[in-house]
């Protein structure tokens, strides 16, 4: 009985081990799997799909141009997974991708999902480039496999906090965050920078990434008469928050981070969005070196750009660029090339510091005017 069961276990284990461990052969071409993870269901599915499309666009182009590594023709295949923006699901799909034998991962979208997944990729020595995770903790864990092409929250938050006080003239600031790794991390950095610049934080309130009702906390904030309300979170919350601020007759300015600086925010908040301010790391699409070309290519295939797809596109190119220099798709070999990256992408020149963060990340501030995000100015984050 025991012997039998054990036998089956061994057979099953052998089968599982056999699956996807080796690169698959497809005629003379070697098929290489690259993972992409973002929330494809749930409240942030529109952003998740945008990332997937960005990564897929890059991958299709590389395949179309033809990729030869180590003398062999290589065909890239995208394995896109849904982490539902949930840290627990993120680790499950990360493990699934590792088991399927991906040699690199573009993702995840949310910091909260990226951080726990990064441990799994690190344990299996699979390089990971996140197009949009901005929480400081992601690269601070010291994993050699963790990279990002996005300005991090410390860089963005310090710019935002400083900007609110010095440029927007806000003396009293209320801060709300959605209790996610991203929202909380950004809000903390803004609070620090705003205080350092001489501003006063009169209220610190909290909500969740599923809420749509902020009347209670906004009423409480209104009682403290701030000049500006900063929200660390995403557009599905930011839009109703802006509407409710108007509904309560609040005069305070609204300032958000990159999660709020999306076309969806204007669509959802309508006329109430007028005057709202938000930042986005990096350059505006039309100021990106390859912005207009990317926009034309992307929109022909997938429709409107939501937010991070140019970064997902660049992340894919950066990863393949490292493979080209290593002349191998072996993670161990091309990982050694990643720190030496100096790639001119759609979003600008990409180089990494010792932790895997992008160096000298720019932060751009935008304001809604006439129903459109208008660029205010780009601020270079301090070193």
């Amino acid at each position, binding site marked *: 009985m025991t012997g039998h069961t054990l036998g089956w276990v061994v057979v099953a284990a052998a089968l599982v081990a056999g699956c996807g461990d080796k690169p698959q052969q497809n005629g003379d071409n070697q098929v290489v799997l690259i993972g992409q993870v973002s929330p494809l*269901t749930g*409240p942030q599915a529109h952003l998740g799909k945008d990332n997937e499309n960005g990564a897929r666009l890059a991958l299709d182009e590389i395949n179309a141009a033809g990729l030869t590594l180590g003398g062999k023709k290589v065909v890239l295949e995208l394995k896109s997974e849904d982490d539902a923006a949930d840290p627990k699901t993120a680790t499950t799909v990360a493990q699934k991708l590792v088991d399927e034998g991906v040699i690199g991962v573009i993702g995840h979208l949310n910091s909260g999902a990226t951080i726990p997944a990064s441990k799994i990729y690190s344990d299996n020595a699979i390089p990971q480039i996140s197009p949009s995770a901005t929480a400081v903790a992601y690269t601070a864990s010291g994993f050699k496999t963790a990279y990002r092409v996005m300005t991090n929250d410390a860089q963005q938050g310090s710019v935002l906090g400083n900007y609110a006080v010095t440029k927007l003239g806000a003396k009293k600031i209320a801060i709300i965050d959605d209790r996610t790794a991203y929202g909380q991390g950004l809000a903390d950095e803004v609070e620090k920078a705003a205080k350092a610049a001489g501003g006063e934080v009169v209220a610190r*309130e909290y909500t969740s990434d599923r809420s749509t*009702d902020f009347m*209670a906390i906004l009423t*409480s904030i209104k009682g403290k008469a701030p000049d500006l309300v900063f929200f660390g979170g995403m557009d*599905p919350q930011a839009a109703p928050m802006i509407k409710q601020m108007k509904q309560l007759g609040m005069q305070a300015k609204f300032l958000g981070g990159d999660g709020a600086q999306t076309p969806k925010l204007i669509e959802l908040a*309508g006329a109430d969005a007028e005057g709202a301010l938000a930042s986005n790391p990096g350059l505006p699409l039309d100021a990106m070196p390859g912005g207009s070309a990317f926009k034309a290519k992307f929109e022909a295939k997938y429709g409107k750009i939501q937010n991070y797809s140019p970064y997902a596109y660049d992340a894919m190119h950066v990863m393949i660029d490292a493979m080209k220099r290593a002349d191998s798709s072996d993670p161990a070999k091309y990982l050694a090339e990643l720190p030496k990256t100096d790639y001119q992408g759609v979003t600008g020149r990409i180089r990494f510091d010792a932790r895997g963060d992008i160096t000298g990340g720019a932060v751009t501030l935008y304001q809604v005017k006439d129903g459109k995000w208008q660029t205010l100015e780009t601020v270079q984050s301090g070193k």
Partner: protein
Amino acid sequence: MDIFLQQLINGLVLGSVYALVALGYTMVYGILELINFAHGEITMMGAMVSLAVIGALALAAPGLPGVLILGAGLAVAIPVCMALGLLIERVAYRPLRHAPRLAPLITAIGVSIILQNIAMLIWGKQYIPFPAILPQGRHEILGASISDTQIAILVLAVLIMLTLILVVQKTRLGRAMRATAQSRQVASLMGVDVNRVIASTFVIGSALAAVAGVMVSAYYGLAHYYMGFLLGLKAFSAAVLGGIGNLGGAMLGGLLLGLIESFGAGYIGDLTGGFLGSHYQDVFAFFVLIAVLVFRPSGLLGARVVERA
């Protein structure tokens, strides 16, 4: 004082939406002792269907007054949700009426997941904006602010609840519902068509859910295939708080939950000197729920057996 009044308004508006949805839970429970977990998703369907109609109309006939467009949205969403409620009862619950109580609970969860995914397939994963067709009037009362939408929600919710009480207390159908709630067997022996009564309960509950769905999407300015989940959970809690199975209880529970959430989120930070912040809003609401259930296990107005409908 103005802050207090504002929180009171916030809580009442939120609470009356909870109450409308909670009524659907409590009516079904009163008659079948079944928790219809798909009810939140029917609310979502109501919002999505009405938004589809409103969006199409706002594009096709931009000159039409907003209230008329909204009315058209409601006029389509209510029958669709009624049909949906009828269908769910017929397909997912009636065949299991004599099964152990866990079985229909599981089909209820199944139906809720199916509805979410159907909505996702039809309308996509995006948040759908509510077109700006309604007048955005705002009134100041003693320093607090109340919008036309909020007034409409409050008035409509009260009217609907009064009508429902009248239906249950004064009509033949209402009497049949109360009889069925007391004992299905005896009611059917007295000539009550129990299947019809149960189906009507689902239909009425779904109509209320449709109205609540439209209210929520108009109030927050958006709709999404996932919106029914949290709303359903809160409304269910409200029904339990008031005493599940009791109509007045669902209304009271809904209003109370709205007020508790509103005042909890608004004052908890200041009252505890910043030790507990507004992220304890839900903890606070559910703490009250637990406290009530410890002392009154059948909820605030949860009378035993008699008077449920």
